[in-house]
């Protein structure tokens, strides 16, 4: 009969009748078996479990601690800031965008931007948060190695708006700026110094940092004068009409473009197979990522709930321990309360990791994919423009042919001039279309690489946080066990 906890009762999946084997009874309370053991492989039976990213021949990291190559998570009191890691695999060279290849080596991509020290400036509804933007770099593009400026949120939006207007329509995936939030900012302005407004500021700070890093990782955007000015110059003209291209605005623009596209009948020729495939791919990715994002957000929510409920239980257990008149049991219950309190903090930290590492990353990518879709739609528009020019040219040629038979020399000349102009336009249209197609191919390839790197980096960090949590849990329960055993 079951005395030791290591024996598990095997459960058949039919709910109607109970298996015939013994269920131990215990008049002191419910039975002691673990109810869940429906998978044939008991995880505990296997000494190790290896999930290898590469080939299975790689060594198993068996230790209880994280691998030495990976830096430990910062202590619970501060929020884990996800640094989108510097590209040690060198992908970006200084050469012009025509030569962006996947070669490793060349100039190292060495720029790191930190957004820090949020500071409230002003009072009342005109108040705003100023952030310190510090750039550390060895690139010759910049005047010095390290410098910082003060920026406010609308400055970031202004930067994005400029970049979007310059680059989106020729096929560059411009990273979207963080979302505006009226509710969040109002709380901050009104001066509510509470947990949620602090969280809001931290969330925004983190998002701004990620935004800048993504922007400068783009070899073309990095060199843009607006970007350089943003990073370097101490004074920046106040950006107005920043409604122009917030994420929501971008989405609306994309939707309008999409509508326009739908109204056209588009004939897909051979060379477009890649684009068709990619578009479908991004549609799928969009759906999947949104779903994943929603699940992770739900996890964050429930983990926070778990933290709160654990804290409440800890208090309740302490009270129970107080009223228990058996000394050893009373002490053990108090210890249990302490353990649970510590665990509550663990849950809180884990929820933060869930959020800052995982959930925000997914949110960023959902927005990025919107930008990607926008770029594809721009290509459509470019194609359409080219087609329209061609059609117009054809009409003009037909008109010219007709004019040949009339005796209107000046009208004929005019027609010839117009045709010449249109021929130029058609050629330009074709060039534009080819250019944007080429750019998009490169951009998509870069995007996919970045995506893989980002996800890998973040997920590994996230897994480390999980491992850390487990280690702490082990410590706490190991400390508690002798207390429980000491009850006599």
């Amino acid at each position, binding site marked *: *009969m079951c*005395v030791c*906890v290591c024996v598990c009762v095997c459960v058949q*999946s039919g*709910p*109607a009748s*109970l298996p015939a084997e013994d269920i*131990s*009874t215990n*008049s*002191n*309370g419910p039975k002691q078996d*673990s*109810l*869940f053991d429906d998978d044939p492989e008991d*995880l*505990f039976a296997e*000494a190790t*479990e*290896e*999930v290898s*990213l*590469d080939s299975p021949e790689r060594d*198993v*990291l068996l230790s209880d601690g994280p691998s030495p*190559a990976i830096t430990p998570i910062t202590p619970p009191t501060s929020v884990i800031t996800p640094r989108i890691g510097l590209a040690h695999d060198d992908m970006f060279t200084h050469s012009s965008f025509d030569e962006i290849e996947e070669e490793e080596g060349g100039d190292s991509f060495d720029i790191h931007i930190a957004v820090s020290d949020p500071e409230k400036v002003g009072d009342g509804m005109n108040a705003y948060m100023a952030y310190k933007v510090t750039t550390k770099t060895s690139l010759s593009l910049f005047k010095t190695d390290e410098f910082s400026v003060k920026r406010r949120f609308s400055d970031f939006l202004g930067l994005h708006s400029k970049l979007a207007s310059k680059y989106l329509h020729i096929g560059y995936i411009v990273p979207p700026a963080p979302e505006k939030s009226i509710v969040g900012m109002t709380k901050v302005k009104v001066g509510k110094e509470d947990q949620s407004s602090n969280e809001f500021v931290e969330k925004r700070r983190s998002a701004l940092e990620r935004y800048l890093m993504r922007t400068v990782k783009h070899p073309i955007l990095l060199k843009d004068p607006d970007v350089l000015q943003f990073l370097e110059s101490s004074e920046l003209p106040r950006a107005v009409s920043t409604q122009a291209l917030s994420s929501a605005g971008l989405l609306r623009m994309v939707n309008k473009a999409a509508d326009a596209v739908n109204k056209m009948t588009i004939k897909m020729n051979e060379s477009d197979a890649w684009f068709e495939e990619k578009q479908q*791919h991004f549609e799928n*990715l969009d759906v*999947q990522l949104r*779903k994943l994002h929603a*699940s992770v957000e739900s*996890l964050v929510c*429930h*983990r926070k*709930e*778990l933290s709160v*409920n654990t804290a409440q*239980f800890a208090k*309740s*257990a302490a*009270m129970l321990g*107080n*009223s228990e*008149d*058996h000394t050893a*049991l009373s002490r053990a219950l108090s210890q249990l309360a302490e353990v649970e309190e510590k665990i509550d903090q663990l849950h809180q930290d884990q929820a933060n990791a869930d959020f800052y590492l995982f959930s925000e990353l997914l949110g960023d990518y959902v927005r990025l994919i919107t930008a990607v879709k926008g770029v594809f739609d721009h290509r459509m528009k470019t194609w359409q423009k080219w087609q329209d020019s061609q059609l117009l040219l054809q009409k003009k040629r037909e008109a010219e042919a007709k004019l040949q038979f009339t005796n209107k020399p000046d009208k004929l000349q005019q027609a010839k001039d117009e045709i010449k102009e249109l021929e130029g336009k058609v050629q330009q249209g074709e060039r534009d279309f080819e250019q944007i197609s080429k750019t998009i191919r490169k951009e998509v390839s870069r995007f996919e690489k970045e995506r893989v790197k980002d*996800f*890998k980096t973040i*997920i590994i960090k996230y897994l480390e946080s*999980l*491992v850390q949590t*487990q*280690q702490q*849990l*082990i410590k706490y*329960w*190991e400390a508690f*066990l002798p207390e429980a*055993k000491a*009850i006599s």
Partner: protein
Amino acid sequence: PSPRAVNVDLQTDATLQVDISDALSERDKVKFTVHTKSTLPNFKQNEFSVVRQHEEFIWLHDSFVENEDYAGYIIPPAPPRPDFDASREKLQKLGEGEGSMTKEEFTKMKQELEAEYLAIFKKTVAMHEVFLCRVAAHPVLRKDLNFHVFLEYNQDLSVRGKNKKEKLEDFFKNVVKITPDVDDFFEHEKTFLLEYHNRVKDASAKSDRMIRSHKNAADDINRIASSLYSLGTQDSTDVCKFFLKVSELFEKTRKIEARVAADEDLKLADLLKYYLRESQAAKDLLYRRSRSLVDYENANKALDKARAKNRDVLQAETSQQLCCHKFEKISESAKQELIDFKTRRVAAFRKNLVELAELELKHAKVKGLVTVRSR
């Protein structure tokens, strides 16, 4: 020593062994097969089984409570009513939503809900069995005639639900009189039990909430694993292989989290729930003793009055002696019962807390071992 688990008071001797050997869940009721092995001469056979439903357990419990002879004992608390409503509702919702999810998702959710259903089912069986075993282990209650009828009579015991008057009496029973007791022991026990019962109630509720959150988090991890799996099956590039591996990891994590929640449920929540009910039963015992004390005091007063008027003295004397005897008998057995209660309680908490800690450790270690080798 018996081969069964070491318990504090379960002297499972061969004279009377009771267990629930089978159970069947039908639409709105559960049928338990109560199996008895006994060498007592009271029974016609040495081994036999009957089928009982929840209401019949309640009938047996209530018959103990209402029996004056048992006023001095902690009556083993009645098992809670089997409640599959929530689980059934979930299964139904799943059935309705079948069209809106993939086959894998549906199968997965169905398996989980079935596991949940099974867990609730096993728990309710355990609760009913514990009740019977406590009765069988009690030196006096095991000899009760109703108990034997319950075990042996293979027809339906036509039992009626409590009527309004009885329910009202139950309600008032929960109010324990706050008059200081002559006996220090009982005075202390009264104060202790009142406070303890309330705190256990609170702890039980909070532990339930905590475990519920834990289960919710595990469900989320499940969904995340599914999403990652979908991402991973889009094509066979490195990215997708990566997602598949991570999905596997999350799936394993989810299983462990679910087990942690289940173990917490079993070792902590159920323990607290059980002692909530037992402490209530102990309170009921104290109440009965108080009532008999009041009867005794009233009988004393009546005797004084009778002596003063010199009328019906003998009758008053007999009545007073009866009350005195009853009170003393209850007090004596109550004292022992309450001491046993404490012993049982301490042992149960010790056992469950140790097991809880061991299980938590086991799970945390397993989770830690599932590692990812990074590039």
